[in-house]
């Protein structure tokens, strides 16, 4: 009868990474309700990535989306606007967070501390977690399973982080170095040039550091498929495939364009 806690708390995104696979995630920026979670799962994404940094989505909505994702079996990750939001987001049902604009190993370590319960970190235990389906479990078991399941990502997207990359990659408890390609391009003085030699160098550097310390690297902000494939060939493993908003605009633009062309052909 007793279900093991490990069977309840599954992080498919992390399991797949551990199996050496490439994983995909979909950013949620404009959806406000749980349908998007079911849709993302049906599409085949490994994680949804609720973007609180670049959207007006509230903590309350974030939590509802995360809890839906737990039920559906797609990993809920949240990009927080800053490290102070981490604990409420995780209490709300997220199985991992991304913190933007990390600049140093100390900052990365502070993020890990907020994500993990003692002894791995300093996360406060509030009890009644949605990840546990609100059941009670022995605290020691809960801590072990939740620490294992909670994925910590940091965005590498400025020059300071590049400089400090080896130290950041060495931080215990950190899982993914997510390269924010757009901000990084801006920082390198080559805005929008995702394939620029300077950006390639940065990818090489981050991937090498991640290899040394057994971490994963993420490719973020790139839509050029060839370039994504190239960075994956080098070792990138977590791929951000855009947002709900740009899926609507890309599919929608194609459909509206089709009708317009039909209209042009018809009125000739």
């Amino acid at each position: 009868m007793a279900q093991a806690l490990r069977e309840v708390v599954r992080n498919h995104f992390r399991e797949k990474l551990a199996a050496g696979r490439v994983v995909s995630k979909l950013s949620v920026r404009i959806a406000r309700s749980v349908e998007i979670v079911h849709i993302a799962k049906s599409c085949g994404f490994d994680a949804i990535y609720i973007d609180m940094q670049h959207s007006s989505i509230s903590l309350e909505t974030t939590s509802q989306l995360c809890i839906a994702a737990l039920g559906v079996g797609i990993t809920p990750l949240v990009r927080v606007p800053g490290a102070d939001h981490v604990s409420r987001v995780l209490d709300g049902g997220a199985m991992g967070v991304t913190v933007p604009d990390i600049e140093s190993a100390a900052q990365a370590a502070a993020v890990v501390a907020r994500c993990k319960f003692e002894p791995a970190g300093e996360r406060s235990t509030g009890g009644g977690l949605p990840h546990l389906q609100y059941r009670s479990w022995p605290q020691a078991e809960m801590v072990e399973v939740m620490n294992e399941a909670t994925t910590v990502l940091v965005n590498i997207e400025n020059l300071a982080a590049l400089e400090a990359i080896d130290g950041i990659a060495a931080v215990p408890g950190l899982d993914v170095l997510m390269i924010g390609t757009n901000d990084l391009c801006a920082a390198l003085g080559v805005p929008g040039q995702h394939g620029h030699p300077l950006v390639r160098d940065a990818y090489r550097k981050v991937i090498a550091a991640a290899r040394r310390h057994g971490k994963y690297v993420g490719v973020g902000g790139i839509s050029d498929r060839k370039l994504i494939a190239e960075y994956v060939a080098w070792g990138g493993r977590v791929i951000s495939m855009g947002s709900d908003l740009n899926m609507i605009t890309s599919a929608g633009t194609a459909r509206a364009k089709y009708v317009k062309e039909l209209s042009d052909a018809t009125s000739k």
Partner: protein
Amino acid sequence: MQRLSEIVRNRFKETLAAGRVASTLSIRLPWGVEIVHAAESCGFDAIYIDLQHSPLSLETASQMAIAALALGVTPIVRVPNHSPETISRVLDGGALGVLAPHVETPEEAQAIVHAARFAPLGGRSTGGGLPQLRYRHWPQEDVVKIMNDATVVLVQIESPAAVERAGQIAGVSGVDGFMVGANDLCAGYGIPGQHGHELIRSAYARVIAAADKVGKWVGVGGISDKQLIAEYVKLGARIVATGTDVSMLMEAGTERAKFVASLNS
């Protein structure tokens, strides 16, 4: 001084009146107003806010409609039923048109027109403070005339019985167009999902012929096969419902997730 007719514009209707084919996007998810801006950027002429097949509230529908008014993409609401209170609240909420499902008789069509148009064309109640007028006051006779002009009334022909009566339904004054709901029509003929079946082709031909006779528009709904859409447009259809927000997410998302999965091989 801006004229009322400049404020109350219906791009969807203007596109059709110019002899062009108009595109619509159906909204089924309870988004915020962002979806309306996205739809406008995509290039759609109208949004169909679908209250028939979604959990969207009237409140959300109204917020989307008001956003659409400001952007110039025409807000049309597919109502869940024909009740005059539903139709009038949707229009009071900012819609510039209604799409009524499952219309089978001219009497039903007549009742919908009555609910959607102000006297003398109908019996719509005047509540005042309309978002379409940007909440300003205008002489009532101008309001009535311009709102009646700008409001489109579309009915869905989606059963064999409705196709039989296409001529009579088309004759109802105050109805602007007919969306042929291919899926329900297929089901009605006992050929589920066969959008290109001979019975559906002849239904389109029949509805288009009836509409042409009285200078009204016909729309293609529920079909994703582009070749088939083009064929029905060639027959004379002028409105193309391009699908829902859900199907766009599924289409773009599945393709993207597949791409990442393919990187494993």
